[in-house]
Each structure stands twice: as structure tokens, then as C-alpha cells.
């Protein structure tokens, strides 16, 4: 079973995304409230997929992405963005994010993106 880490400062988003993954047969092995926490948990859990929110306290998604890729340049990081974050998304893609989805998104859309990573 493929493993997932969900990074988002909003509990609601984490729970929603978690449900989507679980229904699709993924195992959510970690949740993180900010980029720093995500970086720490990545070291121990090594999830197959990371969904990464962009605007978060302590360490934002972009920086977290960069740090994770420093550790493992093949990490599958999927950015979770919203309209208005075009610039940041562009940067994330340039840094090596595998792709991005835009809030609000459907389960179908999220899964079609995640499935494509493997």
C-alpha cells in the first residue's frame, strides 16, 4: 500500500484529504501542520506521496518542498494551491514539485493526479 503524508495548517483540509486517500486505498502515515513539521516527519516516515499546502506558519510549503528535495530529489510532492498563488505554484514546479492541484478539488481529480505519479 502506498503511503501518504498530508501537510496543511487547516485541520479541515487535512481531514478531507485524508478521507479521500483512505477511500482510494492509500495509507496516510503522517499529517503535518506546517513545513517544518513536514520536514521532520518526512525523515522518519518516508511517505510515497506528500500533499503540500503552500501558505503555512513557521515554514511555508515552498521552503519545505525545497528542503525535502534536498534530502530526496525523487520525492513525490504535490502542491495544494488556491487561485491567486500562481507565482508560488510556478516556483514550486520549477523547484521540482511533481504537480499541483487547485482548491477546491474533487476526490476524482486528486486521485487522478496521485495515480499518475506512480
Amino acid at each position, binding site marked *: 500500500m502506498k503511503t501518504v503524508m498530508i501537510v496543511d495548517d487547516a485541520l479541515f483540509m487535512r481531514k478531507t484529504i485524508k478521507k479521500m486517500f483512505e477511500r482510494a486505498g492509500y495509507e496516510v502515515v503522517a499529517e503535518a501542520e506546517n513545513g517544518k513539521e513536514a520536514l521532520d516527519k518526512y525523515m522518519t516516515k518516508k511517505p510515497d506521496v506528500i500533499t503540500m499546502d503552500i501558505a503555512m506558519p513557521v515554514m511555508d510549503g515552498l521552503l519545505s518542498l525545497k528542503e525535502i528535495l534536498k534530502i530526496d530529489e525523487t520525492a513525490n510532492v*504535490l502542491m495544494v*494551491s488556491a*487561485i491567486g498563488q*500562481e507565482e508560488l*505554484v*510556478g516556483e514550486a*514546479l*520549477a523547484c521540482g514539485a*511533481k*504537480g*499541483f*492541484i*487547485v482548491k477546491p*478539488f*474533487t476526490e476524482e*481529480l486528486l486521485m*487522478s*493526479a496521485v495515480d*499518475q*505519479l506512480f
Partner: protein
Amino acid sequence: MKKEESLFDIFLYETTHLLDEMETKLLEAESNKRTNKEWIDNVFRIMHTIKGSSAMLNFKKLSELSHGLEDVYSFIRDNNIELTSEIIDISLEVVSFIKNEIETLEENGDLGKDITPLKNRIKLIFENLKNFKGKKSNYKVKIKFKKDCMMEDIRALDAKNKLEKISKVLETFPTILKGPDSCKEISEKGVSFLVNSDFKESEINNMLKKILFVEKSSVTPYEFKDLKKVEEEEEEEIEDIKDRKHYISVDVNKLDNLLNTVIELVTSRAVLEDRVLKEFNKSEEIENLFYNLNERIKELQENVMEIRMLPINRVFSSMKRLVRDMSKNENKKIELKFVGEETEVDKNIIEDLYNPIMHIIRNAVDHGIESRETRENLGKSSVGTIILKAKTEGGNIIISICDDGKGLDRKAILNKAIDKGYIKKSNREITDKEIYSLIMKPGFSTTETINEYSGRGVGMDIVYEDVKKLGGVVKIDSKENTGTTIDLIIPLTLSIVSGIKIISNNISYIVPINSMKLIFKEKREDIVKDTNGNMFIVIDNINYPLINLNSYYADSNYIDNRNKIIMLIEASEEEKFAIAFDEIGGEYQVVVKTFPKYLKKCTKSLRGLSGCTTMGDGTISYIVDVTGLALELNKKVSE
């Protein structure tokens, strides 16, 4: 200042010609996907010439624009680079721009509009060219993203960045990827890139498949042109100058005046001949003198006419651009073919032909030729064909516009005609030709489609009016799923006609000599009548409709028992008929005068006559319009 003005006229004339030539060449290159050194040289030379001349006249903007393109083509030539569709497009844009703005040259002292955007784009293309040389392959890459994945513009930008790692991205469609407008466009239509890469199609496609939310992607080779390096440039230059024709521009009014003088000369000669022959004894010497005079006048007339003649190709070529732009816009593939484009037509006619032909072509592209899918489903070639034909026949020029589209909808036209009250529901069989001719009624249109090019699909009434003004007729033929052919039959403006004088009931007529096929004395037994009283004559076992000029134009009560002379007339290849009259006169060169306006209402008594002429003895002859007469006959028979 007089001198300057005429220089300016020459400049305008030459530049317009060069732009036409360039446009033709560009379209040629686009459709052939092939150019050679000569092609590049030619286009380069055109830009070079325009640059030079406009700089001489201090038209800085014009000079700058042509200079920009000149640089591009010179670089292509010198570095053996492949020509891209981007370059063709920008060149066509420049041509259109200058053509549209050239009128403003005189008043503004330069092009009216701002050239900066065009100039910048040329500059960019030139920079790209300089950064990129080599012999890699060009591909067109198309991507369509999954529905609702949002921020399609950023995704397209990402795809571009990824493509850039393995190729050189030459162009993107839309040109600007980022922004709400592009985002909408990309989400609806997808995004395309023109790239140059040494990777294979499949390798590029595999890379694309890794991009998230790419639903469909395609990589197809994009053919560019094979160019050879310029060799012995100087030698070429010398040849070029030798080959170039010399033109002077002449005010059309001057030509019209010249033609009028020639026409007066013809009449004066006829009067003079008549008087001389009456007052002096007929001698061989006088006859010879008149013969010589006649011949010289004929030559003069022919020369003047010839100056006014232009190949119809002028009108035809301008349709290439129309078809190209329209089919691109409507996502159809259409091939435009020419037959007889070298046919020469009087300048006045040429100008008036542009609009009718354009209308018909627009209709053909819009409503005639089906979409690619429909064509394929019907088992037709996915590429539609429009053929533009020109030929001269019996003193007429016939222009045919044939398309292999879906044809006219007989039923829809009939219903609409009944709706609009053009025809009554009747039991009578209506022929296809009659039905098709209904579309030329004002405001008649069976389609509600509106687009940039065809308006409301109307236009056939305008075509009809335009052609009528030229003294011509329109014929429409169509077959469902096979296509439509529209013929414009227009008399060549021979304001001087060679004809045979014939006399019937003391009225004299002139029949154009080139439509006359046979003259003989009637034998009563060869004439037959059908149940409606229509007369026919049997010649070599073929029945031809027969018109007795006496009863046709003159008093129908006139008792007519003289032995008639019969003339077989060929209006066109398919249309032959015979006329019967009393006497035959000689051959004359006559000047056609149109009927005065107040007579034009007498349509019935003037049917089949194109005008009249004053003969040398001061009498009047009517000029027989053979095409018109043939039409009248057809009408009568179908009634």
C-alpha cells in the same frame, strides 16, 4: 512638385505589385511546405526593394518594417536556416499591414498606424533565429489538460519549461501563456508549442505524459523548408536586373480617353467610307485605302484594349488569402485550385469581379465545404476543394466557382421560397435550376449562421446584382453531397464589336461575328413546331430552337411569307439556337452604345439585345446579345 508626385505614383504602383508578389509567394510556401534558395532570394529582394525605395521617399516606418523582415530573410539565406510558419505568418501580417496602411502614406508622410508591436515581434523572431541554428527536427506539440484541473495557464507554462529542457520552444499558441484569458483559452482548446529538438517524437511525448493532468498530448513533425546556401550571389543579382520587367504607371482616365478616341475614330471612319463610296466612283485604289485604314484602326483598337487587359489571376490570387484565413478560422482544410487564371479581362471588369467571386467563395468555405469529420464520414477526402476557372467563350468571359461540398439544400430553398412567397405551391414540376436561382432573390438565405466572414450567408443577391451590372448572368448548378458550381457569364467589354449585319422586317441587327456558326437559306420542311407553338429547326438531325426575328421583335401580325435566311448561333458550348431573318448585310466594326435609360424599362421589347449602334450611313442597328437571347429561349421552353 509635379515630378515628385509622379515618383510617388510609381513607388505606390511598384510597392503594391511587390506586396502582391510577396503574398503569393508566402502562400505558395505555406501550402507547398517547400522553398528553395530562389524563393528566399525573391522574398528578400522584395523587402530589400521596398526598404530602399521607402527610405528614399523618407517613409521611415515603412522602411523600418521592411528592413526588419529583410534582416530575417537575409539571415535565413546566409545561415541555411529552416523557414518557420511563424516567419510566414509575420510576413503575411506585415504585407497586410502595409497594404492597409499604404493609402495613408500620402497624407501622413508615412504609415498611419503604430508599427512598434509588429517591429518588436520581428525583432524577437530575429533574435530567436540568431540564438538558434542547426539541423534539428521541428515538432508541433499539442496538450489538452484534464477538465477542471484549473490554473491551466500555469500548467502550460510548466509544460513549456519542461519542453525547454529538451528542445527549443519557437512558438506557443496562445502566444502569451499566462493570464486569465489564456487560462480560459487553454482550458478550452489546449495549448500548442512549436519546438525544435533533437529528441524523437516518442521521447517528447513520454515526457509530456509525466506532466500532471495532461489528458491528451500529441507530437507531430512540423515540416519546414529545405534551404540551400547562397552561392555566387553577385551573379544572381545581375540576372535579376535583366529579368525584371519595366513598368510605368498610367492614370486609368488617360486610357479611357484613349479608348473613347479610338471609338470615335471607328464611327468617323464608317461615316467617311459611306460618303466616299456614295460620292465617288468605286475604285480599287479607294477600296485599298479603306482596307488599310481599317486594318490600322483595328490594330490601334486592339492595342488599346490590350493595355487595359489584365490577367484574372489578380482576382484569383487574392482569394488564396481569403480561403487560407477562413479555413484556418473554421478548422477546415481547403485546397484552392485555379484553371485558366491567365485569361485576360478588361480592367474595369476585373475590379467589379472581385466582390461577386469573394461572396461565392465565402459561401463555399462557410456553407459548402463540410467539416473534416463530416467529410470523412461521407467518404470524401478530408480536404475540400474549390476550383476557380476562367475562360473566354463566344465573346463572354465565364468564371466558374466549383466546390466539392455538400451542395445546395433543394428542399430548404423550396420551403423558404414558399414561405417568403417567391413561388406558390403548385403541382408544376420546378426544375433544379429554377430552384437554385431562387437563392439570388434579395434577402434570401436558408442559413442563420453568422460569422466574421460570411455575414448572414446572404450575398447571392448581391452577386446577382453585381454581375447584372456588368451585363452578365449567374448560373447555379448543384448536386447534393457532390458540390455546387456557380458560373458567372459576363460579356467582355468589347465596346467595339465585329459583327454581321442582318435585316428583318426592315430593322437591322448586328450579330457578333464570333458566335455565328452557320448561315443558309431555309427549307420549309426543316422547320418543326411543338405543341406550344415553339419552333425548331433540324440541322444535321439535331433540333435547335428557332427564333423568327420578325415575330420576335416586330409586329406579330406581319404576314411573313418571304423565304428566310437562317443563322445558327452558338451562345456557349451547350447553348445553340437559330434565328430567321430576311436579308444579310456585310461585316461591320461597330461601337456598342447602351440603350438610353428611358428605354430600359421596355424589358420585353429589348430582351436579347445588348445595345444599339449608329452605322456609317446614320441608320441604327440593334446589337444582338446572344447569351441573353439563349436565356430567354430557355425560360420560354421551361414555361
